[in-house]
C-alpha cells in the first residue's frame, strides 16, 4: 500500500488551509503529522479519508485516485464515534458485516480483535459503560476489524488523561507490530510523535514545514537523551 499526496490544496471560505501538500507514505510506515491546531492537519486527514475533496492536486492509493471514503482507509476519530446502540462486540463486527461477511463469522472475528485490545470481558457492554481509554481502544479495534490497508487516526488520544494516554501509546505500538497497518496519526503532542512515529511530518500554516525520520529502537523511552534531542529538534519549528 503506497499513499501519494500530490500538490494538494484546499480552500475553506476563500481561505487557503492547505497550500500544496506533497507526501508519500510507504507500506507499514507509521507517520505522525504534528502541528498546532488550525495548521491543517485534520483537513489533510479528512482529504485522505475521502470525506472532503481537494480543490487542487490529487491523492492516490496504490495508483488509484481517492474520491470517496473506502474500507481500505480506516479512520479512528478523536470522539471515537462508536455506535451507542451496538455493544462493543457489535461495534467491532460492524465493518466485517457491512462488507458482506456472514454475521457469525464477523462476530468471531470481532472477538479476536477484542482480545487484541484486551477487552474480552467487555464484549457485551455498551460503549457508554466504558471509560474514555477503553472506548478509544474499541475505536481502534473497530477500524482494524474492517481490515484497512491504512489507518487514519485523528488525535485519537487527545481527549484522554495523561496516564491513559501513555498506556494507549504503548498499546498502539504493540497492536501496530502485530497487525502492521500503515498508520497516519495526527497529533499536537511532540513527545507522542517522537514516541510513535517512523517519520514525523511537521505542518505549519497549511504547509509541510519539515520532516524528521526517527530511528530510535522501540519501545522508546521518554528519558532517553536521544529522545530529548529529537524533541528539541522538532520544538524549534514551533518556537520560530
Amino acid at each position, binding site marked *: 500500500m503506497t499513499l501519494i499526496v500530490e500538490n494538494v490544496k484546499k480552500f475553506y471560505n476563500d481561505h487557503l488551509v492547505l497550500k500544496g501538500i506533497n507526501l508519500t507514505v510507504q507500506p507499514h510506515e507509521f507517520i505522525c503529522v504534528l502541528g498546532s491546531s488550525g495548521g491543517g492537519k485534520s483537513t489533510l486527514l479528512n482529504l485522505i479519508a475521502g470525506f472532503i475533496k481537494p480543490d487542487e492536486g490529487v491523492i492516490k492509493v496504490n495508483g488509484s485516485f481517492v474520491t470517496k471514503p473506502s*474500507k481500505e482507509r480506516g479512520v479512528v476519530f478523536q470522539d471515537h464515534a462508536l455506535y451507542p446502540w451496538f455493544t462493543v462486540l457489535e461495534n467491532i463486527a460492524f465493518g466485517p458485516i457491512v462488507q458482506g461477511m456472514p454475521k457469525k463469522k464477523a462476530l468471531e472475528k470481532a472477538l479476536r480483535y477484542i482480545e487484541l485490545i484486551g477487552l474480552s470481558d467487555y464484549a457485551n457492554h455498551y460503549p457508554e459503560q466504558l471509560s474514555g481509554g477503553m472506548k478509544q481502544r474499541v475505536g481502534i479495534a473497530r477500524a482494524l476489524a474492517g481490515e484497512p490497508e491504512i489507518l487514519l487516526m485523528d488525535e485519537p488520544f487527545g481527549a484522554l488523561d495523561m496516564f491513559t494516554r501513555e498506556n494507549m501509546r504503548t498499546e498502539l505500538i504493540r497492536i501496530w507490530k502485530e497487525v502492521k497497518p500503515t498508520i497516519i496519526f495526527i497529533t499536537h503532542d511532540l513527545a507522542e510523535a517522537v514516541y510513535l512515529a517512523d517519520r514525523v511530518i511537521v505542518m505549519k500554516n497549511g504547509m509541510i514545514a519539515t520532516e524528521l525520520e526517527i530511528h530510535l529502537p522501540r519501545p522508546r523511552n521518554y528519558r532517553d537523551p536521544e529522545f530529548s534531542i529529537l524533541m528539541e529538534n522538532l520544538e524549534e519549528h514551533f518556537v520560530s
Partner: protein
Amino acid sequence: MKNMAARQEAVSVYTKKVGKVRNKKYLHAIPIIAFFVLWEVITRLNINFSIVNPVFFPPPSLIFLNGVELFHSGLIIDSIVSSTIRIVIGFAIGVLLGVIAALLIGRVEKIEFWFMPVFNMIGPIPALALLPLFIIWFGIGEIPKIILIAWTTFFPVMTNTIDGIKSVHSSYIRSALSLGANDRQIFKKIIIPSTLPNIFTGCQISLGLAFSALVVSEMMGAKSGLGYIIVDARNYMKILNMYVAIILIGIEYSLFSLLLKVIEKKLLKWRTGGFENAVEK
C-alpha cells in the same frame, strides 16, 4: 476472603438500592389516594350543605358504583373496544406513514423539495378543524375517525423523525463509510437506530393529540366509544356516566403512554442519560 466480603457488600448495597426504588414506587400511590379521599370528603360535605348542585359533583364512590353498573350492562366493554380499535388503527397508520414520509424526505432531496413546503403549510392546521370536512367526505362511519387520528399522529411523528435524521452525528456516517458500508446499510444500521429516540418523542406527542382526536370524533357522529358516552350523558343529563367515561379515557391514555414507554425502554436500552443517571440519590 477480602474479595468475598467486598462482593457481599456490593450485593447488599445493590439490594438496598432496589429496596429504595420499590419504596418510592409504592409512595407514588399516596398522593393519588389522598386526591380521591379529599374529593370524596368534599363532595359528601357538598351533598349535605348543597353549596353547588351535588348532581354535578358526584363523589368518586358513586362514580365507581355507576361504573360497575355500566360494566355489567356491557356498555363499558363495548365503548372501550370500539375506542381502542379506532385509536390503535389510526395511531399505527399515522406513525407508520409519518416515519416512512420522514425517511423518504430525509433520503431523497426531490421528495423533500416537493413535499416539505406542502407539509409545512398543512401541518399547523388543527386537525379537529378538519373533522366536519372529513365527515362530509367520508360519512360518519369509522373511516373519518381513523383518518382524523392518523392525521393528527402523522405530523409530530414526521417532524420529529426528520429532526432525528438531520441530526445524526456526521462522524457516525463517516466511520460507517470508512468501514465499507453502503447507503442502504448506513440507513438501516446508523440512521434509523440513532433516530429511534426522536421517533418515540414524536409518538408520545402524537398520542396525546390522537386521544383528543378520538374523543372529539366520537362526540361528532358516533354510536359507540368513550367520547360517545360523554355526549350521550350530556344529552340525557347522566352526569355519572360522563365522569365514568372521562376517567376511563384518562386510564386508557395512561396505559397506552406506559406501553409506549415500555417499548421505548426495551428498544433503547443502550441509552443512558438524564437526571436518573447523572446523580445517585
